[in-house]
């Protein structure tokens, strides 16, 4: 889960990392006031969670208060990856002598924490690392290992920092590592770490992602208003509706509605539809052990989607039980009916009960099962996927 730049900077600054004089503003007028108070050229940075802010025009400069107001107004009318700009971080402009990069992240492959520095900051660091690996240096640490100051300082010396500043920049790295550890971060980055013309080092941009799953032990973040949040761009109406129901859902541009069980199969099922010549209309995940209500909601999303011509359903009952699955489908069919053909495969835990629920419901309301084909373990899932493609093509 990503933090806003200004939030990351607040955390960095608390642990002693120097950041520019700054203020969060929510109106062009406030931007003007900050610039006036500061009396210096300012930078205006749209606060959004998505990447590519620079390319999207989300960063502007202003030499005087009036210009600051103007530029702020421009930013507030901007949308970046679908998100309207609602906050701008105003900072005093820093005179740049040199730009470095410092970051900490997790190396999942080797189960290490990694501290990374690069002699070139302010740019796409992964490009630099790919083209000129000699410009990048790393230290790996175990999860419960200390970062000694001398280790941080040796990175700093390697970066070419001289004299008294070795200790200061070493402290910046130590602090950054401390922030990383204190908040269960997945990533903290200062890019660029600026050497000013005055010879000081200052964190000009800050990036930080924390582990959503560890938020429960960071009350201090929720006290700062940092709660679980969404990073995706502008959502479709349907995606918003799905989010309201807490269903992971993404619209795609095909015509087969995917009603899968299990995240793994959700991904693989999408490939299968492609292999057999079809195109899915969506991604969806039921989550572990969905209730009948949630399953019914999932079907509502597909049924209401005019793009969807046929529905491909699969349930292999594990932690999700087939009886609940059948109940959810029947609940939906009884309340809404289904306007599109659907082919389903259901097996796994409690499959007998699932079959019984379907049979009972069909006996009571045969008309609602008109468009529906239900298979069991005897039919390979590939056949079901093929059939879904066939059904969609027929429509």
């Amino acid at each position, binding site marked *: 889960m990503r933090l806003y730049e200004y939030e990351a900077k607040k955390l960095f600054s608390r642990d002693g990392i120097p950041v520019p004089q700054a203020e969060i503003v929510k109106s062009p007028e406030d931007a003007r006031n900050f610039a006036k108070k500061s009396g210096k050229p300012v930078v205006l940075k749209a606060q959004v969670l998505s990447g590519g802010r620079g390319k999207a025009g989300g960063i502007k400069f202003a030499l005087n208060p009036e210009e600051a107001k103007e530029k702020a107004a421009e930013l507030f009318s901007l949308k970046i990856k679908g998100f309207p700009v609602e906050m701008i971080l105003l900072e005093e402009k820093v005179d740049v002598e040199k730009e470095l990069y410092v970051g900490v992240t997790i190396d999942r492959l080797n189960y290490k924490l990694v501290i990374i520095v690069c002699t070139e900051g302010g740019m796409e660091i992964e490009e630099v690392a790919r083209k000129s690996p000699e410009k990048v240096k790393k230290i790996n640490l175990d999860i419960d290992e200390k970062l000694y100051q001398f280790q941080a300082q040796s990175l700093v010396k390697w970066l070419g920092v001289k004299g008294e500043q070795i200790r200061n920049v070493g402290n910046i790295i130590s602090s950054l590592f401390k922030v990383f*550890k204190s908040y269960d971060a997945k990533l903290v980055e200062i890019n660029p770490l600026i050497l000013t013309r005055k010879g000081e080092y200052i964190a000009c941009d800050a990036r930080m992602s924390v582990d959503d*799953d560890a938020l429960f032990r960071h009350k201090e973040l929720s006290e700062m208003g940092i709660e679980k949040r969404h990073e995706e761009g502008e959502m479709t109406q349907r995606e918003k509706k799905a989010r309201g129901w807490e269903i992971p859902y993404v619209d795609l541009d095909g015509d087969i509605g995917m009603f899968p069980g299990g995240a793994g199969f959700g991904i693989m099922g999408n490939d299968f539809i492609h292999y057999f010549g079809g195109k899915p209309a969506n991604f969806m995940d039921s989550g572990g052990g969905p209730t009948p209500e949630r399953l019914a909601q999932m079907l509502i999303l597909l049924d209401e989607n005019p793009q969807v011509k046929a529905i491909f359903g699969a349930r292999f009952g*594990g932690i999700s039980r087939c009886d609940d699955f059948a109940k959810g489908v029947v609940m939906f069919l009884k309340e809404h009916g289904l306007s599109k053909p659907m082919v389903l495969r259901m097996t796994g835990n409690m499959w007998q009960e699932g079959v019984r629920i379907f049979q009972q419901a069909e006996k009571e309301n045969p008309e609602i099962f008109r468009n529906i084909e239900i298979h069991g373990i005897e039919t390979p899932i590939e056949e079901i996927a093929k059939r879904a493609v066939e059904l969609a093509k027929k429509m």
Partner: protein
Amino acid sequence: MAILVDNNSKVIVQGITGGAGRFHTERMLQYGTKIVAGTSPGKGGEKVFDVPVYDTVEECVKNHQADTSIIFLPARFVMEACVEAIYAGIKFVVVIPEHIPIFDMMQIRKEALKHNALVIGGNTAGIITPGEVNLGIMPDIAFSPGRVGTVSRSGSLTYYVADTLTRTGYGETTCVGLGGDPVLGTTFDEILWLFEKDEKTKAVVLVGEIGGVYEEKAKDTISKMKKPVIAMVGGLYAPQGKRMGHAGAIVEGEMGTAQSKLKALEQGGAHIAKTFLDIPEILKKLGI
């Protein structure tokens, strides 16, 4: 023969008095899994389906020579429970819950390596040695004893692979779910190597999926194995996922895409299956 669990495994359930713990204890017992004890701090002395409950893992090991554990607890308690098991001498732990904090998983991994234990999960459907022991939440119906080992990050894909192997008469030696969380207790390598050394396993099916780096890491192990590995990777048609910032890209490079995974697995010498139905075809061609 099997890997990691068989009908000699003495299993405990950590969190046996909770809803999921209770439900799956019953299911696992019905399958024949030898559940010798369960834990629930403060509830020592109770019984769940005749299984004695203790406050600590230490007591389970002392009184029942337990060697294997399965955890059904809220994510935030998993690290403690898992390390408790490892410190008490348990050598194999199955972590069912999802959303374990990454730092916790790294701590678990470290303690496991240090104490020569193996942890699978978090967010795994578990492990099954068909006909002997079902340790987790996997549906019995998909599995039958046989000669192919499977390893996958996804529960549902494990079921579909086993389903296919069962339907086509190959059956499975052991099916291992590594788990779906971003940082896992055990990676493909370690499981592949156990299958390589298992007499009854004639071939291994590895199912990967987009995201993470563990499939790429398996390349070298596969190239050192004598047994054939059949690999399948989901997500070729999935939109590109998110990356962990610049630093993540430096550390993980191009890893994480289905293409990168397929390429690595193929370079390691794995036979690539596109659909589940390809698996028995390939096995047949290999003469298995």
